[in-house]
């Protein structure tokens, strides 16, 4: 009974905290309360769950109250370097200031190493970050990472640093230095599997792993830790069976569990005490303790206990993406194993045993994928459908070759660098062969914006539980098939709503102006077609893709009718791996952009002189000025300019400056007689537009945005 109470308290606490982190509206709280009423059968449990939920929500709302960082946006800081990790072509440094706050900064120059005391000038990244649809705000990311701000150490700035004694992190940094001497692929694998930095793997491999749904194998996590712990456990148990401990009454398994823990601690250290590894170690530790003292504690309870304690001490962890994924994946794993064990399948021969193990693997993997599905779609915008099958096929490579050998190489490095290098290069060679295995790479991308899909996911359980309750109330004694009725009804509801949303999303037109200082660009949606107008240079590909591709996925983009780049660089390859691209146009040197870059029914682009264009879209005329010195009057309804101009005449009343102060993305919705213009911030502030965008304000305006009347003047 105590277990049931604890279960109710822990789940309610975590859910309440989660909802408060995302400042979820009270409607959501009400929704979860409703589900809890269905879920907990006893009145006492119900009361306890509801009370905990409300209290944790209130606590979280107070704790996560969004306050701007107190630190200045540009200043000289003094502090101690905690960790240094590779970050694209530079480094990412965690600095603890003398005042106690921790900040994260990126540096493309300077030789920072852990333990150093540094005095340096930093500029906040906040100025560059706009508020974009379906992307967390900067402050939210800062809170989730437990830092007070994201900063940049610019090339022109200077730093004065001095090494201050021994720092344990410097041992890990030594491994980073070692990895720098490895070939590209070996370096990427070593940094990912040993040190927890997965960005350095060649992009083609990263992309392939993402599409195969195997990216999680690469990121250091409880998985790596579990693998090493499992191997050590088996190894220790093997030797213990041949030791005098056999004569003690205590089970050898428990000894093996305890003796293997230091091995897991090694992974923890090598990963730089990465959050995911710490959590996994903690979980493992609690599991071992529970096995030693209370042998029958269910693993599910241990998981909840771990998450409960971790979040109690560090509430912002609830917003950490890695925490969310590892918690849900473990939850899925434990639940799936429970379900499987209920089937009580007993193999009669080796063939059956192999079959059952394979089926169990597939079932567990599928179940985990299903549990993670909404979070994956909400966070990264797509879902690798073949993940369960690929996991089954690929896990052996990761569990028995890549992870253990990489860890072995790291340990051997301290004895002999040459052997360590050799092992890692061998791992890279095997990895190259492994990547030739034709794994499935089917992606699911929602055909409509992801918020709408999540709405369906949220309503379906309600439909299911309501129907179940009705059946119970009516005292129907149904057969097994009859009991499936609520499920079938929920499924039917899912299919119908999905088709309905898809149909209505296709009819909508909108323009989103992404006011990014580095990559200002425009996304157009004309019915079921999308187009992009951007100013992209080849050196910006990586950060641009990392930031914007998930947003496009979440807006339901799977193909672009056309992509127009206002620079010489042909962006076809940037998009072709992830989207279907039908037309690409670039602004060639000394040539005007061709007018018909796209199907004219999609939009029309009319080039004026001196880098100014008219964009005709659904009766709305936009003036686009991507260059710095235009001097033409622009009689359009809305003008989109690179930055504010002093001597610009006849500017339309609505002007969007791409290089302005930090602002939200702007959304334009052209309607029959007028267009609506509003910012992402305004959208987030409107409950209906937040959850039902773009249906609100396309079909239902809800008083959001500014009305822009069309005027069709003669062009100059």
């Amino acid at each position, binding site marked *: 009974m105590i277990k049931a109470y604890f279960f109710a308290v822990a789940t309610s606490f975590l859910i309440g905290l989660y909802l408060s982190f995302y400042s979820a509206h009270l409607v959501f709280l009400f929704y979860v309360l409703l589900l809890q009423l269905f879920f907990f059968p006893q009145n006492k449990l119900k009361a306890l769950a509801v009370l905990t939920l409300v209290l944790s929500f209130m606590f979280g709302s107070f704790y996560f109250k969004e306050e701007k960082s107190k630190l200045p946006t540009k200043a000289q800081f003094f502090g101690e370097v905690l960790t240094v990790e590779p970050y694209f072509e530079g480094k990412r440094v965690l600095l603890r200031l003398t005042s106690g706050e921790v900040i994260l900064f990126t540096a493309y120059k300077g030789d920072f190493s852990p333990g150093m005391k540094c005095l340096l000038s930093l500029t906040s990244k906040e100025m560059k970050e706009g508020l974009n649809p379906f992307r967390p705000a900067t402050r939210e990311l800062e809170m989730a990472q437990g830092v007070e701000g994201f900063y940049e150490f610019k090339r022109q700035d200077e730093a004065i640093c001095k090494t201050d004694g021994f720092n344990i992190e410097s041992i890990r940094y030594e491994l980073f230095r070692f990895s720098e001497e490895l070939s590209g692929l070996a370096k990427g694998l070593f940094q990912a599997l040993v040190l927890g930095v997965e960005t350095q793997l060649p992009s083609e491999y990263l992309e392939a792993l993402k599409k195969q749904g195997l990216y999680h194998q690469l990121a250091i996590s409880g998985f790596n830790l579990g693998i090493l712990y499992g191997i050590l456990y088996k190894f220790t148990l093997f030797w213990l069976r041949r030791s005098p401990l056999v004569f003690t009454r205590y089970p050898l398994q428990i000894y093996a569990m305890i003796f293997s823990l230091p091995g897991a601690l090694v992974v923890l250290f090598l990963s730089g005490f990465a959050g995911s590894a710490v959590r996994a170690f903690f979980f493992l530790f609690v599991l071992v303790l529970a096995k030693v003292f209370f042998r029958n504690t269910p693993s599910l309870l241990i998981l909840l206990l771990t998450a409960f304690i971790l979040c109690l001490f560090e509430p912002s962890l609830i917003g950490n993406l890695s925490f969310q994924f590892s918690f849900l994946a473990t939850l899925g794993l434990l639940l799936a194993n429970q379900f499987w064990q209920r089937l009580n399948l007993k193999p009669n021969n080796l063939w059956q045993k192999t079959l059952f193990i394979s089926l169990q693997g597939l079932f567990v993997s599928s179940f985990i994928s299903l549990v993670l599905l909404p979070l994956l779609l909400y966070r990264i915008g797509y879902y690798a459908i073949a993940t369960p099958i690929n996991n089954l096929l690929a896990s052996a490579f990761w569990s028995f070759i890549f992870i253990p050998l990489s860890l072995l190489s790291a340990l051997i490095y301290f004895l002999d660098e040459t052997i360590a290098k050799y092992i890692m290069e061998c791992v890279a060679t095997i990895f190259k062969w492994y990547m030739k295995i034709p794994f499935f790479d089917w992606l699911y991308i929602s055909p409509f914006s992801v918020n709408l899909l999540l709405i369906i996911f949220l309503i379906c359980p309600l439909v299911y539980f309501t129907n179940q309750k009705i059946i119970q109330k009516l005292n129907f004694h149904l057969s097994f098939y009859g009991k499936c009725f609520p499920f079938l009804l929920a499924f039917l509801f899912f299919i119908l709503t999905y088709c309905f949303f898809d149909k209505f999303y296709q009819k909508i037109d909108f323009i989103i102006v992404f006011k990014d200082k580095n990559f200002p660009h425009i996304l157009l949606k004309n019915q079921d077609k999308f187009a992009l107008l951007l100013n992209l240079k080849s050196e910006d590909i990586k950060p641009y893709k990392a930031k914007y591709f998930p947003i496009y996925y979440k807006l339901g983009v799977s193909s672009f009718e056309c992509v127009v*780049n206002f620079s010489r*660089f*042909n962006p*076809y390859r940037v998009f072709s*791996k992830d989207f279907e*691209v039908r037309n690409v*146009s*670039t602004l*060639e040197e000394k*040539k005007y952009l061709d007018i018909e870059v796209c199907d004219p029914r999609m939009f029309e682009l009319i080039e004026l002189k001196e880098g100014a264009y008219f964009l005709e879209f659904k009766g709305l005329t936009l003036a686009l000025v991507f260059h710095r010195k235009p001097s033409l009057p622009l009689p359009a309804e809305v003008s989109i300019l690179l930055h504010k101009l002093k001597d610009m005449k006849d500017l339309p009343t609505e002007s969007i400056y791409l290089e302005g102060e930090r602002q939200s993305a702007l959304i334009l919705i052209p309607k029959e007689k007028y267009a609506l213009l509003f910012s992402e911030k305004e959208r987030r502030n409107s409950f209906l537009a937040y959850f039902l965008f773009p249906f609100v304000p396309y079909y239902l305006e809800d008083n959001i945005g500014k009305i822009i009347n069309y005027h069709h003047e003669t062009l100059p």
Partner: protein
Amino acid sequence: MSKALVDVLRKNYENLLERVEKACLRAGRSLEEVKILGASKGQSEEKIRVLYSLGLKLFGENYVQEAEKKIKNLADLDIDWHFIGRLQTNKAKKAVAFFSTIHSLDRLSLAEELEKRARSLNKRINVLIEVNIGHEPTKAGVFEENLEEFVKELKGFPNLNLIGLMCLPPLTDDERKTRFYFQKMRNLFERIKPLVGEGFTQLSMGTSSDFEIAIEEGATIIRIGTLLFGPRM
């Protein structure tokens, strides 16, 4: 055009761009520095249309007669047409009319004819000097030892805008030899640059079989046929 063929062309282009990207990465060059020229000799207009829709705007033809028909039929596209084959003097008039750039200027008589035709059309045509870098008797092109003199002579042709050099190195499977010729071309290019001035920016070298080496050695235009279009009709 069948969807399968369109997909093949897309895939070809994608693979090519990937290889170009990697070569640029190895050479520490930006992607914008290298232009891909689709060598469309013997290729259908449909194929050109597909590749154009993917952002390829530069195409090269080897025969004036074949090109004339294609250029007229594809006039609705904003293609930059280059002439990359051996140009006969009697075809100079049409070449000037249809192409923006001639890659194969290899003799003074041709320069005179091109100048005459360009003047009559009131046009300034871009030219690249074809260099016979391997001293091969079967190939056209100016020998490197005569190059400086030839460049000086071209100064007397105001309607010819000399923008760079082009070469077709001797066919060989030995990568080192190919690299050697491309390095030689790069050195020649650097030597000639001060003689011509600012506009001298193009080094057209590298085809389907050796474009990666060419990029690593400084090519600014690579001429790709088979790898892009597949085998010729």
